[in-house]
């Protein structure tokens, strides 16, 4: 198969970069947006990597089979989109809950982790 075109690669790479950048921060909401962008980027990656653009894989209009786009990555990406929607809303609910209970939506360091280590070391 042919190599992915430069535009596609740049878009996928750019989206991944932004996604990771957001994911590396401490605001839960930014994390959520990062997750969303990574989701988009991954779906796009799966689809673009499956081959060059083709006709929609809808049969019965007398087209050559070679002209169709690969339907399997599409089916995979479709379910992925819907799942991402579900997870996004769940994350959103968690963000809201965190803010509701703690008054902020920042990811704090896990103090339990640190304290456990310090206590054991002190022994």
């Amino acid at each position, binding site marked *: 198969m042919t190599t*992915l075109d430069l535009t596609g690669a740049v*878009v996928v790479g750019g989206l991944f970069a932004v996604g990771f950048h957001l994911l590396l921060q401490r605001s839960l909401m930014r994390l959520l947006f990062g997750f969303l962008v990574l989701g988009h980027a991954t779906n796009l990656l799966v689809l673009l990597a499956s*081959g060059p653009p083709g006709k929609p894989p809808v049969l019965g209009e007398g087209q050559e089979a070679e002209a169709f786009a690969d339907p*399997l990555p599409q089916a995979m990406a*479709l379910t992925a*989109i819907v799942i991402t929607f579900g997870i996004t*809303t769940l994350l959103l609910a968690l963000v809201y809950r965190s803010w509701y209970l*703690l008054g902020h939506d920042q990811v704090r360091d*896990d103090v339990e982790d640190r304290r456990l280590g310090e206590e*054991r070391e002190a022994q």
Partner: protein
Amino acid sequence: MLVLITAHAVVAAVLPALEARIGRAVWVVAALVPLATLVWAGALTPTVLDGGAPLENLPWAPSLGLDAVMRLDALSLLMVFVVSGVGAAVLFYSAHYTQEEHGRESALLLLFAGVMLGLVTADNLLVLYVFWELTTVVSFLLIAGRGRTREHRDAAEEALVVTTGGGLTMLLGFLMLGEAAGTYRVSELVADPPSGGYVPAALVLVLIGVFTKSAQMPLHGWLPAAMVAPTPVSAYLHAAAMVKAGVYLVARLAPGFADVAPWRPLVLTVGLVSLLFGAWRALWERDLKRVLAYGTVSELGLLIALFGYGTRNAVLAGEVMLLAHATFKSALFLVTGLIEHHTGTRDLGRLSGLGRRRPVLLTMAVLAAASMAGLPPLVGYLGHEAYFDTFWKAARLGAGWGEPWIVAALTVGSALTVAYAARFLWGAFGDKSGVRSPPADDPADRGIGMAAPIGVLVAAALVMGVWYPGTETFTEPYAAQMPRLQEPYHLALWHGVTPALALSVGTLLAGLLIHRDRAALAVVRARSPRLPDVQEGYRWLRHGLDGAAVWFTRRTQVGSLPAYLTVMLTIVLVVPGTALLLRESPLTVPPLWASAIQVPLAVVVLASAVALARVRRRLSAALLVGVVGYGVAGFFLVQGAPDLALTQFLVETLTLVIIVLVLRGLPARFGARAGTLRVRRLRLALSVAAGVLVGLLAMVASAVRKEPEASAYYMAHAEEAGAHNVVNAILVDFRAMDTLGEIAVLLVTAIGVGSLLTLRGARSAGARTIRSRLPAANRDPRTARWDVPRSEWLPEARHLPLHDRSMLLEIVTWVLFPAILAFSVHLLYSGHLRPGGGFAGGLVAGQAFALRHLVGGRVGAAFHRLADPRVIAGAGLALAAIAGLAPIVFGGVPLTSALLDWTLPVFGHVKVATSVVFDTGIYLLVVGVCLRLLTAVGPLQVSVEESVQAAGDEPGVPTAPDDRGSRDR
């Protein structure tokens, strides 16, 4: 065999429940099972001794070589008699010994007997390993008891850690052996042993497991520590059965592997060193049980050396010694238990004059100790004679395996054994000047109940000794399989005056001398350098491991999520990145674009993405992420994926609506940017590098992709499924199982969101009572304001404050709502032919509800009366599942679909695939999920409005709702 093993487990399972009814008698019930095993083994004895080997096979995973094959040959038979015979005796003894927890203790001991039975009859290395580790687990539970004292817990832990460590090593060795031989059947392995390659290494690994289990130096530390266990447990596990597992394995493998390079030096060295030093240590212990424990280390060393030497005569001697050890050592343990029971101590410095008060007990103990010391006419004597004779002759013959040294070690070891046997008797029963033994308090009946099993064991030792032809008939068949380097030795009490007899007498006298002049020896001991204590070593190792674990945790478990992500991302960069660089790249110069429309799309997507990374306002971020999503949908469309684009558009819209609804409850801006400049630069560099890597990977992946065969299949068979839209056919037909799982996940997330957002305490209940009535003036057309609704277009909008309502929007919604719903149903049913389907249809219907929610507010209020969204979603999942299962009724495979051809009056010729039912399930579920999400965020909206009003009095916090007070902290 399998039936009997199962019987052990089943009876063990009911014993704890039985305890409440029959109390102590559970021990008798438990003892019946090993007794039955004895009867069974007795019935099979003639067959087995004639060379037969009854086999049972329970195929489990034959392709992996995992069959529960059980085989009863002469060696297994011997072990079964030891395991079940001593087991029954110990169980009867415990009925009187144990004071509490009869149910637990008897169940564990019985379970152990069953596991041990499995271990000695298993003919598959892996099955054997499973039983091997099960004995460890049961032993842990028995040593720890209820774990009341630290001593118990530590001892149990040490036994567990050391023996499982050895067990794992052994497993590795088993796997290597099994792979080298091409079979895991023990009998086949020994009959046709593999050689060369890594077989020597495998044997060393197996032997390490053996040495931990049989408490060989220097891995013996756990056995003396385990003496905190109740005495019956020590008698059974730590003398007769469990520690014999290692010996058994050596005996089992010796016919095949005794001649392989590291085997003989290793077993002889470790075995004889354990023989000598175990016996030496036993001389200096004060606790009777620890004397016996070190004695066990010593005797096991002897057994391993005898079996490991692997000639006919040595193995015969080993078998006799094994029988002897099982009887005398468990008898001595039980004697110790009885003494402790009477006097409350087992410290030999505090016991005195017990021999005069307990003549019967003394007689039994003397007989057992005599067997240990090798005095006629007990079975121990037969064993001593046999090995002295064997190795004396072997030394003269000179097979070249260091026989003179072996004879020396055996002689010294036997002398020391005599010495500690004498010490045990003297310590337990002798009169000591200046020691007043603690007063004995013992109900006589219990004494008899406990003494009887000891009597049986001692009688067995006596019978085996006197009736030596019988003992030989029993032990000869297995030994006969070994190579014969010399004339076969025959057991007898009197061979005439032989070197072996001289050695026996000599060791006896030397042993008694050592016991008499112990004081002189103590001086020697005090002056000689102390050997390092293995207990210290174990503790040091444990502390070291603990410290290392803490150190490692402190350095890696920093508790910062960004730090963890940074590490992961770096590894992603380094590992696949390096692979990408090192491999020859299949990349050619890529085209700039596949379709020119991509370029503006790319610009929009990238620009919004970069802006998204920079904006500070949440709402702007939400809108920008929406733009990215729509742009990606555009890419899908260009790529030839209309289904995908449609779904992406719909999902993006719904996501945006829900995010915005939730955002109304959150502060407008993100918190301050965290981290120093350096951290931020690192973050930027890392994410850009990751982006570049993924971009490159995408190009490489697409360049090396082969022709998609799966897709070709789907294309070819889509028509059969009655579909033109191949994507839809894959979703609801070819890969319907995946889809079913996926919608289940979707439902779960919706349930999660619902729980998280509606868990808000009582205060939101008040919000539901808001109700705006139309002002009376508006009901009169003359006085009404034009833009305030005059009638109820949307019934639920009544709940909104008047200033939030718009007549125009309400009418538009009223018109559009049914139309959109109809369109969604159309999408659902045309999905098999054109882009659309259950997901798209459901999402469109979701948009209709979202619209209604935005205009009328609280969509849930209107539809709750019709149907709970959770019910709709659940019904969808159920429908999809039923549609998937339905083909079973018609004799088909689940999740297949059939094509129905009907000619109906109005519609004419109709062709329907049954998979449309499945798709309808998806549709219902998606609708239910959307509704659930909207109803969950709906109350948020109301509370926000409330909070805006509340915030009016409190200008300082314009964005925070008034639920600060109800916060947990």
